[in-house]
C-alpha cells in the first residue's frame, strides 16, 4: 500500500503577522513558517495506515523556508521518502500550488501511482483554492474531505472513510482507490518524535528534489487590501478581583432572571 502525504507551510499565528508596505499582502520576511496543522494530522493518518497495513509513505512538499526540518521530522517519524519540489521558495497561492502539484506528481520519479494521497482538508491561507480537492479534480481522482478515519480493504481497491459532520455525527463513505482524502484529524494525535531522532535523520537521510515547471496561471482574484480585522463589536470588560467581577456578573444574571 503506497501513500503520498502532501505537506505545506503556513504562517505561524502565535507570532504577530505584519502587512507588507504595499498594504495588500503579508510581510513574508516577518512570517515564521509552521507546518499546516491538518497536514500534520494527514501524516499521522498515513503512518497509522502504514503501521496497520504495511507499505510505504512518501511525503512531498513544495520548497519554502523551514520546510526541510518538517521533512526530516517526517522521516524520523517513519516516512520512507521525502521529496521537495524546487520552486526557489516562490510564494504560491493554494490554487497555484494545486496546479503545480498536479503536474509534478506524475512526473516525479518512481512516485505514482499511489493508492492514497493524504493531505489536510484545509489550511489557514486557502483563499483562492483548497489544495486537496483541487488536486483531486486535476488528477481526476475521487475526493472526500473533513476525514477523521480511514480503513482500507485488503486488496487496496477501496477504502472506508469517515467524514465529520456536526454534533459529533460522522458519515461513513465507501471510496474507490486511488483517491485523495482531505484529513481533518487523525484518530490519534500526531506522534512525538524526539529531537535526537530528527537530528539523526538530518545526518543520515537525504531529501530528494524534483524541479518544478514554471508557474501556470495567475490567480483569478485581485487582493485590494490586507488589514487587521475590523471589530464588529466588543464585550463590556469588567474590572476587579475575581470576587468583585463574580459579584457583578451574578447581579447581571439575576437581573435577567438567570440566577
Amino acid at each position, binding site marked *: 500500500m503506497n501513500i503520498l502525504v502532501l505537506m505545506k507551510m*503556513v504562517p505561524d*499565528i502565535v507570532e504577530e503577522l505584519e502587512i507588507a508596505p504595499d498594504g495588500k499582502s503579508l510581510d513574508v520576511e516577518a512570517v515564521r513558517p509552521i507546518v499546516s496543522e491538518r497536514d500534520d494530522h494527514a501524516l499521522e493518518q498515513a503512518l497509522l495506515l502504514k503501521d496497520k497495513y504495511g507499505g510505504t509513505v512518501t511525503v512531498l512538499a513544495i520548497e519554502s523556508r523551514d520546510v526541510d526540518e518538517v521533512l526530516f521530522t517526517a522521516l524520523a517519524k517513519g516516512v520512507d521518502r521525502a521529496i521537495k519540489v524546487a520552486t526557489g521558495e516562490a510564494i504560491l497561492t493554494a490554487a497555484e500550488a494545486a496546479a503545480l502539484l498536479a503536474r509534478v506528481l506524475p512526473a516525479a520519479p518512481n512516485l505514482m501511482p499511489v493508492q492514497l494521497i493524504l493531505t489536510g*482538508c484545509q489550511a*489557514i*491561507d*486557502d*483563499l*483562492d*483554492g*483548497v*489544495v*486537496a*480537492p*483541487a488536486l*483531486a*479534480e*486535476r488528477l481526476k481522482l*475521487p*475526493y472526500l*474531505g473533513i476525514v477523521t478515519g480511514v480503513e482500507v480493504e485488503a486488496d487496496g481497491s477501496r477504502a*472506508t472513510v469517515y*467524514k*465529520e*459532520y*456536526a454534533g*459529533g*455525527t460522522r*458519515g*461513513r*463513505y*465507501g*471510496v474507490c482507490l486511488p483517491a485523495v482524502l*482531505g484529513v481533518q*484529524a487523525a484518530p490519534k494525535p500526531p506522534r512525538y518524535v524526539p529531537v535526537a531522532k530528527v537530528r539523526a535523520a538530518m545526518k543520515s537521510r537525504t531529501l530528494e528534489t524534483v524541479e518544478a515547471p514554471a508557474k501556470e496561471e495567475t490567480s*483569478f482574484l*485581485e*487582493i485590494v*487590501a*490586507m*488589514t487587521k*480585522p*475590523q*471589530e464588529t*463589536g466588543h*464585550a*463590556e*470588560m*469588567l474590572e476587579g478581583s*475575581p*470576587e468583585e467581577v*463574580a*459579584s457583578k*456578573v*451574578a447581579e*447581571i*444574571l*439575576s437581573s*435577567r432572571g*438567570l*440566577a
Partner: protein
Amino acid sequence: MAGNIWVLAEHWRGRLSDLTPELLTLGRELAGGLGGGTKLEAVLLGHGAQGLAAALAADGVLSVDHAALAEPNPEASCIALAALIEQRKPQAILVPLSNVAADLIGLLPARLKIALVNFCRDVRVVDGRLEARCVLYGGKLEATVTVASAPAVIGVLPGSRPASAAPSAAPPVTEVPVELPGDLRVRFEAYVDPEPGDVDVTKQDVLVSVGRGIQTQDNISLAEELAEALGGAVSASRPVIDQGWLPLTRQVGKSGATVKPKLYLAAGISGAPEHVEGMKGAALIVAVNTDPQAPIFSVAHYGYAGDVLEFLPALTAAVKARKA
C-alpha cells in the same frame, strides 16, 4: 448580460441549515446591487427535498433531484453543480462554509477552472463588481478581494447577514435533470451518531463552556459546580473534546452543536471562528480569558480578562449567596 446570483441551499438530514437563510439575505443584496435584472436563485440538490423550497427567499429554485444526492456526496454534488453552472452561467454561487458543503468549495472551482473566494465574512457590490472581505490566518488578518471573473464560487462564513424570513409565497421550482454516472467513486453508506449523552447541550438554557483555559480535566469540576448552581450544563470547545475530557456530545462549534442558550459562559475559550459559529446566537454571552486580546471578546456581551480557575468558584459562590 451578467448571470444571476445563486445560493446553494444547504440542507442536512431533512432540515435547511442555519446558514442558508443568511446566504439568501446576502444573495438578495448582491443581486439588487448588481441590478440589470439580476435574479437570486437557490440551488437545491437532493432527493425528494423539494418540500424545503417553500422556505427559500429567492426568485426561483433550481432543483436537482437524484438518488445519489440523498445524502451529501461531494462527487455527485460537484458533477451536478458543475453541469448546472455550465448550462446557466451564473455570476456567482454563494456556498456556505460548513462541513456539509466544504468539499464543494474546493472541487467546484477546480473542475470548472473558475475563481474561488474563500472564508468570506462579507460580500458587497462595488463599482458593479463583487468585492469580498475574507478572513485569513485564523482570523488574524482580513483581505479585501475583488472577484474579476464569472462564474465565481464564493465561500461564506456564518454570520455574514441576518437570516432571511421565509417568503410569503413559495418560489417557483425548476427541476433540472442532470446526468450522473452510475458508478460513482464516492458512495455514502451510513451515519455514525455518537452515543447519546446524558446531556443535550442544544436544549440547555444555561451553558458553562470550557476551553483550553480550564487547563486540566480535574478543573472541569469547577465548571460543573457553577453549571449546577445555575441549573445548566457543561459544554466545551474542540480542544477539550479532543483531549477526551468530555464526550463529543458536549462539543459546541462547527463540528459540534450549534446552541442558542439564554446564557453562554465561555470559560477559558479563545474564540476561534469554528467555535464562535456554534454559540454566537446565545442571548447573553459572558467570556472569561486571561488574554484580553482573545477573539471571544468580540462576540461576548460581557468580558473579564482574568483566570477562569479563580473566577468560576467565585461566581458559584456569588450565585449561591444570592439564593441564600
